[in-house]
């Protein structure tokens, strides 16, 4: 399997603050890769650099072989993104938003196809609603619909299940797994260890701008289950991915 995404030695600073300090990882074809980290760890900055929205101080990002900074249009054509916060024109109806992004991604989307996409996201009944009239969960699903509209090889999801009820969250997981099984790759950031353990093939734990552990969730548990900090973090005797995360990043609450 070839690498869909290659991030090499990424460095990002905001003035004196080092947000990303030499992050490197790759994501293979047909893989769900999780980026886990406490608040301020550098997840969103890393994702922004991958999306080409943030120019790093140094480093390289390649999507299906296209450098996001030297060939941004090629790279972005192969990328679907779901940003953390709502990001659509609030006065447009759902179907108009689909029409807009279909045009921006060069997808010839007729009405039956658009309806089918909305139906799959349980948004068909709301297609004439404005984006401002949608609930949080509906906006997340719309965001995902737009991200997958052009069937990209790589999908970036920034905390995609925030605000979703358990049923919607579980449906999203199934959708992600279906995409993975069809050969698409997904990079997602999440605070939910349950989510990371449930859907990710591999995860990277990032803290203070550095990746401190990478691997399959179960393999990480096996690797660190005897670490004293991880044991100290564990509850009821059984080490979980969350315990590994807290053991490696500390118990301190981050702003």
């Amino acid at each position, binding site marked *: 399997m*070839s690498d*869909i995404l290659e991030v090499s030695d990424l460095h990002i600073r*905001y003035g004196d603050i080092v947000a990303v300090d030499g992050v490197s990882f790759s994501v293979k*074809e047909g893989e769900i890769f999780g980026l886990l980290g406490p608040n301020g760890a550098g997840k969103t900055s890393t994702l922004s650099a991958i*999306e*080409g*929205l*943030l120019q790093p101080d140094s480093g390289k990002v390649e999507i*299906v072989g296209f450098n996001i900074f030297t060939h*941004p*249009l*090629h*790279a*972005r*054509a*192969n*990328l679907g*993104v779901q*940003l953390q*916060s*709502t*990001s*659509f*024109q*609030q*006065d*447009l109806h759902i179907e*108009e938003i689909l*029409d*807009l*992004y*279909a*045009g*921006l*991604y*060069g*997808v010839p989307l007729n009405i039956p196809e658009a309806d089918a996409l909305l139906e799959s996201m349980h948004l068909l009944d709301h297609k004439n609603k*404005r984006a401002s009239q949608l609930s949080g969960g509906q906006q997340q699903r719309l965001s995902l619909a737009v991200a997958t509209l*052009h*069937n*990209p*090889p790589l999908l970036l999801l920034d905390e995609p299940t925030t605000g979703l009820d358990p049923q919607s969250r579980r449906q999203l997981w199934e959708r992600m797994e279906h995409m993975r099984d069809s*050969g698409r790759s997904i990079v997602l950031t999440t605070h939910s260890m349950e989510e990371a353990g449930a859907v990710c093939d591999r995860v990277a734990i990032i803290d203070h701008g550095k990746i401190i552990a990478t691997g399959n969730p179960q393999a990480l548990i096996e690797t660190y289950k005897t670490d004293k900090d991880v044991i100290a973090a564990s509850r009821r005797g059984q080490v979980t991915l969350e315990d590994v995360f807290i053991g490696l990043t500390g118990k301190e609450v981050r702003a």
Partner: protein
Amino acid sequence: MDKNFIKPIPSVTEAFRTLLRADFRVQWRQRRSLIMSIIVPVIFLISWKSLIPVIGAASVLSICMAVGLPAVGLMGYSLTIARDRERGIFQRLRAAPVPTWIIMSSRLIVQLSVIAIMALVTIAIAGWVDKISVSTLNIVLLLVASLIGGMSFLAIGQFIVAFIQGSEAVNSAARLIYFPIAIVGALGSIGLFGKTVENIVQWSPLGTTKVLLIAAMEPSTIFTQSVLVALAVTLGYGIVFAGIGIRYFKWTGKQ
């Protein structure tokens, strides 16, 4: 990796057309702001009817049209940009495979269309209420002059959003700048605040735009030195403010 897996860059023309359609839809749904930008010159037109015999029809119409332009450029445009930036709309658009220049160009075309509508409505009401008659050539030249003057105010609006991030702060700054420009500019240009203010206003964006609009009513004066100088100064305002505004513009309020 299957070659069909990799997506090509979509057509820039089609992307631009799609974005323009969406931006015009949004503007139509926010037509209250369009109406507000028309009301200001109309109020001036109606209240200044008695000044026509004193300062002439060309001066009255030109000042009334000129005060409407900062309403679009300073308040309408800058506030829309600031709010959309806060909502992450530009980030989502930038994550699509479209050159960033088409994102702003689409917005500018919509605003220039608003300016054209405002100009035509003002001309129509001037004819109906104030009995100011204009030829077809006058209308065309007035439109051109409005667009040139309007671009200088759009550039000032761009300058504002480059240096002021939050939408509330942009709103306050735009109003603080608008009222002196419009009110002092309009009244000062007819000498109501003395000769010094009149001279200052003459070289302001409103003053130079007024000269272009008067010349549009009197085409024989278009190639006189004063009109050509006013044109150069108006274009200069546009180039300088737009250049700085584009150079320092941040696509997100968080950076």
